[in-house]
């Protein structure tokens, strides 16, 4: 693998990790709002229990993404900065309001309803804005003269809405499956049932919107659709993961007292599904970072810097992985945390 390909693969990996973590994080915010009025279920509080300690860590992945893009592809920053000024700034404002409210709420145990509203609404808006970056990068929405984003064109184009529908459906689908698994880990079968139901309903919808997006893509980015069709094999594998995962939501677990479905298996397979599909999308997007202005080859940093960046990544990850493991044990595994009322 040559240098630019290695670098873009790393960036892809960060995008993917943030997409999954972000889906679960923002989705949990949405579900927490959705169930805030229905005090008879634990769904809202389960979502919140997961959210409190994790959002800070999820947020760091967003910064990691931006920093690695600057480090690996400095020549791309001008185009990115110009094109993403508006969605980027909006995301920053919403993200700040959301984070501040989460901490404020945890500290004083007040503004519960405001918090639920804020984290629910931003839990939909932020992912929507982030997903809207995909059609921008695929081309057709950047003014060739000024390099600025044509906001009006972006938000009147049907393909943008197809992307949005696909993105939001995926977010809610993934977070529902995750929270189903989290509820089972907390031995809360009734909440499990609630989230399983959502996962079952949303599953087919994600597939449908994905197909719709590919169909509408031809309006602005024919090149990308053609490239995507070349990646058929990956998409077939991805769909296979989805079908098995989806079926596993109906299988009976070994423990006869539990309800239908094996959420851990389902969630794992759905992650594999999205990994395969987004890998294929990434491959199809090559050689362009931003169509038609920037290619991966043309934006890569100098070899000396790249070498140092890669070394620092390896050292950093070696230090961090035990930290992540400890964190995971404390908040996603420890029964004392999962079972608190």
């Amino acid at each position, binding site marked *: 693998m040559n240098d630019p390909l290695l670098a873009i693969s790393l960036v892809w990996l960060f995008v993917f990790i943030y997409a999954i973590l972000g889906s679960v994080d923002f989705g949990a915010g949405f579900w927490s709002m959705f169930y805030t009025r229905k005090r008879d279920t634990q769904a809202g509080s389960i979502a919140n229990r997961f959210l409190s300690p994790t959002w800070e860590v999820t947020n760091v992945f967003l*910064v990691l993404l931006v920093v690695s893009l600057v480090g690996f592809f400095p020549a791309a920053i001008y185009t990115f900065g110009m094109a993403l000024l508006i969605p980027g700034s909006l995301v920053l404002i919403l993200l700040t309001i959301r984070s*501040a409210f989460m901490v404020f709420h945890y500290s004083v145990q007040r503004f519960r309803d405001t918090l639920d509203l804020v984290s629910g609404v931003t839990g939909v808006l932020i992912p929507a804005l982030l997903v809207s970056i995909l059609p921008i990068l695929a081309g057709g929405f950047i003014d060739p003269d000024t390099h600025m984003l044509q906001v009006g064109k972006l938000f009147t184009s049907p393909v943008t809405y197809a992307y949005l529908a696909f993105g939001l459906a995926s977010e809610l689908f993934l977070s529902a499956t995750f929270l189903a698994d989290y509820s089972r880990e907390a031995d809360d079968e009734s909440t499990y049932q609630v989230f399983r139901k959502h996962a079952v309903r949303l599953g087919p919808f994600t597939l449908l919107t994905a197909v719709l997006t590919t169909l509408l893509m031809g309006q602005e980015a024919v090149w990308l659709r053609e490239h995507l069709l070349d990646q058929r094999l990956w998409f077939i594998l991805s769909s296979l993961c989805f079908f098995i995962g989806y079926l596993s939501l109906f299988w009976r677990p070994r423990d006869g007292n539990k309800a239908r479905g094996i959420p851990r298996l389902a969630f794992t397979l759905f992650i594999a599904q999205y990994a395969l599909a987004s890998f294929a999308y990434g491959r199809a997007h090559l050689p362009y970072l931003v169509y038609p202005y920037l290619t991966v080859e043309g934006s890569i940093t100098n070899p000396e810097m790249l070498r140092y960046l890669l070394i620092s990544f390896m050292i950093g990850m070696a230090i961090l992985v035990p930290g992540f493991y400890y964190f995971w044990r404390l908040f996603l595994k420890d029964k004392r945390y999962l079972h608190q009322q």
Partner: protein
Amino acid sequence: MDELTIARSLFGSSLAFHIIFATLGVGLPFMILISEIIYQVTGDRDYTLMAKRWTKAQAILLGVAIPSGTIVGVQLSLLWPRFMEVVGEVIALPFQIELFAFFIEALFMSIYVYAADRLSPVSRIASVFLVALGGGASAVLITSANAWMNTPTGFETSDGQITNVQPMQAFFNPSFPSAALHVLVSAWMTGAFVIAGLAAWRLLRRKQGYREVRYHQKALMMSLAVGGIMSLATAWNGHAAGQVLYEYQPEKLAAAEGHFETQAYAPLALGGVVDLEKGELVGAIKIPWMLSFLADNRFDAVVKGLNDFPRENWPPFYVHTLFNLMVGIGTLLMILSLVSWIIKWRRRHREALPRWLLWILSSTGILSMLAIEFGWIFTCSGRQPWTVYHYQRTAESVTRATGLGLWFVLFISLYILLFIGTILVMRSYFKRHPLQDEWKQIQAHPTERRW
């Protein structure tokens, strides 16, 4: 206002806002760590209580520090894309490593805040140590990038192209050691004085129990000790930072001093305003020979004046006032801690410091925070008109996008909202968790393991 001015105002506001929380994010964990250690030494439960309460405050601050840091990080690329191109080519390394420090800070802060009740004392102190380490390392790493903007090294240019990049040379650029140490010790100083200020303010209340007075007294004297030592360290190291200016950024030193004529035996100017018509500093107190001596440890050192530099490269002159204010506050804080400790030592048998002194001390938190702000504005404005000294002008680095005014208004409103929110939440939290309640809890669970 033109777009460049708006971009500078917007980014400057973002930084000025973030720096409050970032500085406390370095300073407070340091104080928490010290009080946890003092508890281990003395066995006085008041010190764990301080650690616990400051952690709560820190958790609230972190809720603003993390997103405001995210804003600064992303806004760099959005507002200064041409600058970030250069950053990516030459000085990407500290940004990258900073992220890992940020990760460590966020991970262990979550652990320390949300899992404190499930941790052993050793893991708890280890966690807060890692939070302090992560915060401190972040500050040092980001300062490396900022120092590089002042003294850019580690690359060559030919035909406007960057060549022969040496990432390590860029990382360890000439002003990095002094600047990083300056940021670190001044943040520890500020964390200490913010606590000293609050404790003094609490002590001014007339109606409170003996135990509360003792508690605030301990917090006050401890933070004055840390703050005094750190302000001394800041001043000593600031001197080294000044000598770096003399060697590498003579325009900035000249502007900081309002110094126009190149000369040996140059005087140090305190106060005064620059009169651009006459090209001199008016109304300043001048200490003969002192500037030469401070710049190079010799009275006959030749200090370059602004008249030796082309006018379009002159920094703005308000940096002279900012510089004086920063140094003045630092000196004042140093004297105040010393005076307080002397009075405390002489009045051994009486408990409180005199009220007039408490009144003055209650302002030290705000004063030290102002000194931090003045210092950052000084170093960044003093670098103007350059983004990267003698390589890239600020006007070249800014985005070509228009309509920044709207964002300026939105972000300023956001900062005001968050600032008010933070204060309200702090007040509300500490009102609902008074000291008496905490002591009752301690009485209910009197044993706290020590290591």
